[in-house]
């Protein structure tokens, strides 16, 4: 049922309080002095004249009470550079002043001199190891997935099809930039409010940076204006900066980035290169293949190993591979670290897979639809990590339905004749894909999330989770789940604002895990509340909403507020071998087939998406309006990834860090995206739900680029595809002929 979102009224009336709307008396405004070079040693820092420096609070690495790192997986990233810098825009020094308008001018007036070291800017430069910039070999992480015997398939193949695919960086471009506010009190320690996804990540990072015990660090989430992964790890950095300034000055400190600082200095989607070599029979059956998936991580490890993991596991797409060898690798360069962004590695490797399927089809003279149909994973078969598909998924039926909704065959026919006589070429493209919900492998077991549900004096209940709302509808759906579990109405349930002092650690709000994993725990904790009331003799086995509320009020009148907890318990039969990367990679997958229809204007080389069908199986849909909004929003971002959003780099720095020159789709650019659901259910999720937040970013780019290929009779293998890229590809012959079997040379 589509109830109104919990915080919706505040949002439509402008009352919702975001971090920059918050003010405390005596606040100082913080600014960050950053490196202007990609790699080198800091020789000298000079404070230029013309600024009242005595009024400023200045923090350097020397002021850090604890360990100088942004604690995450590997503690390799300093919170403030200490002597050396490894990427442009690396934070070196912090300033704060009571007059917000003085800060940017002061930041500009700190001059840093460097001894330059040779930098690395691409996957290839990093692989050649002419400079070692990280560890012993510039490699953050590698994975090897092996199934069957790939070495034997080549001799049996009728065709061996090779391809190389690349994707560029993408900026999350949440409309609210990163921001935090910090306060320090000698007795209570550090308190941080911020626009963030993972309060407990920030909590952990601040304990280490400030050398404070658990109960001396408090992190609260304020209303968050979009995140998409971009506020998963970076808030630990900016919260650290504000905390250091607050500790030194003894005053509240606010840091809110302006748009350009946010775009050039914070994380983006990892650029990637994927190489496929596939053995196929004349009938279009995949016998096996090798996939090499490489991502560029930037200067520090951050989350690259985990992004690589998801990308590697998704690299084989929704297809059955009797034999496969997938090598994944994340490499270091002297760019700001790339990080979490909706999809988390899967959009990159799935783009390659879905482009490669079209290439295989062209090589065999088979339709793009038929090649997919002949290789879809079926119930009972195994994925690339040898996970058996247990659920009754029927991808062929999903494909048929998507094609019929898009009127695919008729359009294909119509476009063929239309294109003969028009310079506005029309095309239609397909992408089939999957997305695993929740943390990979043993991840959820390690997280061991804890959720609470509280019975209140007024008979209502309150959900206690660290899961954050940043547009997806976390608050709404978790309240809905608690209400449905207890037979209450939606209004009877409220949810606490994430605050590490008041809510348990239910894990980070990432990986499409909130509804499926945390939702299931909310369900269990809510049931615990009911059992307490039943055990106290206040509630019978069957009860009405009123009876529950009365019992809840009576119990809390006697005992005070009471809570019930639920901790994640790994489902039986889930096995994951971390060493060999085999087993149940995800408890559940969502499945989808997307169809894009485009027009390519050969006068301007611009592409318009005229129609978009997004059909997916996502378990039970708990809130149709929110679920649809997740899909349309993800598809829009995916269309941006394909056609508009290009990060231009010079010496490791983003050149176009403005909304004026980094272009995201506007209301005039997008078609009315059509969304359809299939609902198979899911035993692992609350009321049969699966995760859906990330799924919709995986499919649009390959569907759109396949459609462009269909329109022009020429395939393109790189993202993004701006008019100049199409022009260049067509005039230089860099694009691959759809029916040519040329193997692309390695760059």
């Amino acid at each position, binding site marked *: 049922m589509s109830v109104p979102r919990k*915080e919706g009224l505040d949002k439509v009336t*402008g009352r919702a309080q975001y971090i920059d709307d918050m003010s405390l008396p005596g606040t100082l405004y913080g600014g960050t002095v950053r490196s202007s070079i990609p790699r080198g040693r800091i020789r000298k820092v000079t404070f230029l004249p013309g600024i009242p420096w005595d009024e400023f609070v200045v923090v350097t690495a020397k002021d850090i009470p604890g360990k100088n790192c942004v604690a995450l997986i590997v503690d390799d990233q300093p919170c403030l550079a200490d002597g050396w810098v490894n990427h442009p825009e690396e934070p070196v020094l912090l300033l704060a002043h009571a007059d917000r308008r003085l800060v940017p001018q002061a930041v500009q007036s700190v001059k840093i001199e460097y001894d330059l070291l040779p930098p690395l800017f691409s996957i290839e430069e990093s692989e050649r190891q002419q400079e070692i910039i990280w560890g012993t070999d510039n490699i953050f992480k590698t994975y090897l997935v092996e199934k069957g015997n790939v070495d034997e398939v080549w001799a049996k193949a009728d065709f061996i099809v090779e391809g190389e695919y690349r994707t560029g960086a993408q900026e999350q471009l949440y409309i609210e930039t990163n921001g935090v506010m910090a306060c320090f009190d000698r007795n209570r320690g550090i308190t941080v409010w911020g626009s963030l996804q993972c309060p407990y990540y920030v909590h952990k990072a601040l304990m280490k940076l400030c050398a404070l015990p658990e109960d001396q660090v408090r992190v609260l989430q304020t209303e968050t*204006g979009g995140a998409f992964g971009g506020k998963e790890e970076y808030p630990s950095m900016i919260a650290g900066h504000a905390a250091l300034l607050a500790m030194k000055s003894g005053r509240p400190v606010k840091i809110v980035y302006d748009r350009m600082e946010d775009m050039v200095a914070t994380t983006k989607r990892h650029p990637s290169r994927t190489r496929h070599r596939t053995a196929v029979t004349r009938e279009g059956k995949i016998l096996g293949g090798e996939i090499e998936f490489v991502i560029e991580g930037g200067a520090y490890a951050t989350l690259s190993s985990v992004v690589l993991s998801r990308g590697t596991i998704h690299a084989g797409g929704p297809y059955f591979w009797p034999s496969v060898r997938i090598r994944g690798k994340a490499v270091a360069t002297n760019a700001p670290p790339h990080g979490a962004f909706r999809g988390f590695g899967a959009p990159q490797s799935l783009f390659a897979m879905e482009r490669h399927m079209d290439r295989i089809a062209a090589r065999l003279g088979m339709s793009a639809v038929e090649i997919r149909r002949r290789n879809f994973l079926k119930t009972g078969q195994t994925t690339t990590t040898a996970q058996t598909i247990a659920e009754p998924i029927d991808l062929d039926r999903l494909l048929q339905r998507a094609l019929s909704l898009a009127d695919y065959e008729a359009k294909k026919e119509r476009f063929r004749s239309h294109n003969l006589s028009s310079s506005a070429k029309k095309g239609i493209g397909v992408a089939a894909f999957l997305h695993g919900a929740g943390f990979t492998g043993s991840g959820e077991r390690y997280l061991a999330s804890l959720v609470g549900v509280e019975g209140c004096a007024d008979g209502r209940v309150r959900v206690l989770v660290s899961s954050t709302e940043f547009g997806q509808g976390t608050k709404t759906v978790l309240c809905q789940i608690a209400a449905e579990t207890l037979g209450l109405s939606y209004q009877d349930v409220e949810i606490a604002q994430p605050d590490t002092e008041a809510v348990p650690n239910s894990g980070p709000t990432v990986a499409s895990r909130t509804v499926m994993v945390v939702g299931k725990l909310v369900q269990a904790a809510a049931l615990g509340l009911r059992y307490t009331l039943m055990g106290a003799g206040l509630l019978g086995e069957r009860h009405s909403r009123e009876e529950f509320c009365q019992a809840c009020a009576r119990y809390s009148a006697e005992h005070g507020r009471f809570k019930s907890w639920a901790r994640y318990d790994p489902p039986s039969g889930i096995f994951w071998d971390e060493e060999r990367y085999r087993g149940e990679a995800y408890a559940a997958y969502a499945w989808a087939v997307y169809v894009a229809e485009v027009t390519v204007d050969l006068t301007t080389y611009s592409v318009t998406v005229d129609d978009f069908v997004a059909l997916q199986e996502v378990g039970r849909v708990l809130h149709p309006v929110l679920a649809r909004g997740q899909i*349309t*929003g993800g598809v829009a971002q995916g269309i941006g990834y394909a056609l508009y959003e290009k990060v231009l780099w010079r010496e490791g720095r983003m050149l176009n860090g403005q909304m004026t020159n980094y272009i995201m789709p506007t*209301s005039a650019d997008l078609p*009315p995206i059509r969304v359809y659901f299939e609902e198979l259910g899911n035993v692992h999720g609350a009321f049969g739900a699966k995760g859906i937040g990330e799924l919709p970013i995986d499919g649009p780019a390959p569907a759109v680029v396949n459609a462009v290929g269909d329109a022009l009779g020429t395939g393109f293998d790189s993202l993004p595809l701006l008019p100049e890229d199409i022009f260049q590809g067509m005039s230089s012959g860099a694009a691959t002929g759809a029916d040519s079997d040329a193997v692309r040379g390695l760059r």
Partner: protein
Amino acid sequence: MNTPRARCEISFTVNDEHRTVLAFPMERLLDVLRERLGLTGTKEGCGEGECGSCAVLMNGALVNSCLVPVLQAQEAKIVTIEGLGQQCRFPALQQCFLECGGAQCGICTPGMILAAWHLLNQNPQPDLEEIREALAGNLCRCTGYVQIWEAVAEAAVRGNRG
């Protein structure tokens, strides 16, 4: 950033209330609204007139308040999201955003609603193309716009009925 000369008195009407502020003439209207008058419903998204999050109505025109020097607002009539409830010819507009899923993270919502209100005032029965065009100056990263268009279309239906 050399702030010119001294502060001066600037008077205007915000949400039907007469206000006088002491401000530098080149200060952004956005900052004056948010910091001097506490009207934080108007948001900053880009600071360069691209995203529309800071949109307000000035003498009936839709403007990006990050591009308006406060001097230009002298004697103007300004409406922000906080004042919309009181004077909306389409009282259902905010409700429609709520029901149709027109607001997700909410940061673009105030500007988006003002742009929609402005459209409906000029054109009470817009078709989809007109809605898409009218909102093209307001960026939303969450929704893909579809449910925003639906909210505006629904508000038009309800407004014209009432």
